């Protein structure tokens, strides 16, 4: 069975732009399961439901658990999560201090994906994605922004790399781009504009970017150009 594991970020980006419906349709095409870890459910739903801010968005997201578009992964991953978090948070060191760059919830997403042998993880966050895909780029960013030398603990990095080497990462913008290609957004095409499809795709990608998905303007331009609209 095919499986995708979602971090909170992409669900937030999609939910704040009223695009969660895309997941329901895409899931049928995917012919597999979309999972979120328990701690991500807490972040997405249980916690905001207790307050006023983002309560409606949380209730809206809850409907996608009720209709089984998203499922909570209930198997035990605590130890794997802790081990992974310890590894990631001991890769970079600044001023003699290991940098705790990631949080347990997002690490649980990776732990679940590894345990369940997911086809991909969906992560909108720049930091976690870079740790998996390009840790040396992250080192450069940390160094530049913190204005201090960042050492790498290659023992932790090698161990982590070995664990995640086959893990694929996608973002909400990639999912939305595929939904666009498949014509899921066809009702939104502004036919009276000069390049209607281009306008629509650009709007979708910018909406997700403004909703918090980490994507640069150049990447948005690249996607629009790849789609040759």
């Amino acid at each position, binding site marked *: 069975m095919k499986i995708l594991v979602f971090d909170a970020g992409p669900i937030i980006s999609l939910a704040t732009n009223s695009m969660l419906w895309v997941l329901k349709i895409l899931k049928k095409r995917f012919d597999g399961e979309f999972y979120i870890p328990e701690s991500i459910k807490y972040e997405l739903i249980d916690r905001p439901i207790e307050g006023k801010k983002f309560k409606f968005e949380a209730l809206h997201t809850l409907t996608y658990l009720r209709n089984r578009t998203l499922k909570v992964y209930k198997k035990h991953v605590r130890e794997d999560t802790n081990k992974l978090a310890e590894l990631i948070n001991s890769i970079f060191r600044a001023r003699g201090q290991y940098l705790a760059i990631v949080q347990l919830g*997002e690490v649980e997403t990776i732990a679940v994906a590894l345990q369940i042998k997911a086809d991909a993880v969906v992560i909108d*966050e720049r930091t976690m994605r870079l740790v998996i895909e390009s840790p040396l780029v992250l080192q450069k960013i*940390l160094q530049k922004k913190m204005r201090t030398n960042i050492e790498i603990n290659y023992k932790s990095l090698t161990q982590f790399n070995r664990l995640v080497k086959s893990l694929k990462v996608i973002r909400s913008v*990639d999912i939305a781009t*595929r939904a666009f290609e498949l014509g899921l957004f066809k009702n939104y095409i502004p036919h009276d504009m000069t390049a209607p499809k281009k306008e629509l795709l650009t709007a979708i990608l910018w909406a997700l970017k403004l909703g918090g998905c980490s994507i640069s303007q150049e990447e948005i331009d690249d996607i629009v150009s790849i789609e040759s609209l």
Partner: protein
Amino acid sequence: MQTEIKKEVLVILEKVVDILRKKDIRDIIELKHLSDATIGNASIFQDQDSISIGVLVYSFAKVLERGFQNEKLYDKVFKLVERAKDSLMKNDIDNYRICIKDIFTIIKQMDSRLKMFIEQVLDKAKIQKGSRIFAQGISLARVADMLNISRWELMNYVGKTKIADTEYEGIPVKERIKLVRDLFQ
């Protein structure tokens, strides 16, 4: 409290005492800038002292910006900042933290008519400081945890800034699109 954190917090407190003594509204901008001074330490050490002083100074600047006029409470805050500074100089960390906590309490009580505004200011201060820590390379989820704010709030704020717009040399866009095409055929 680590020595370098203490050193940095002390520099901030000394400047805040100076600014508050002068009571010059034009210094509010300086106060706001000052609130970012501990971000480097907050990102590396992720200690509550570096975080809380940033949030505190930013919130207070915002309250003053709004035209806060309560002289009595202003003096109370001023005295507490001085006491916090003295405690830290004497290495009395417990008392320093009590003073900081008391200042937060006073800010929250400053004006019952402004209650909603002050709550918003404190939230905004956390989100603003959080976005600065995120800019340093710490993940949003981690920052949300550190500041006890939700990822919903933080993502919403960060998305509208240029913070996440860094040069990115990860997987090329083309490759990722190929992957989603394979996943959703």
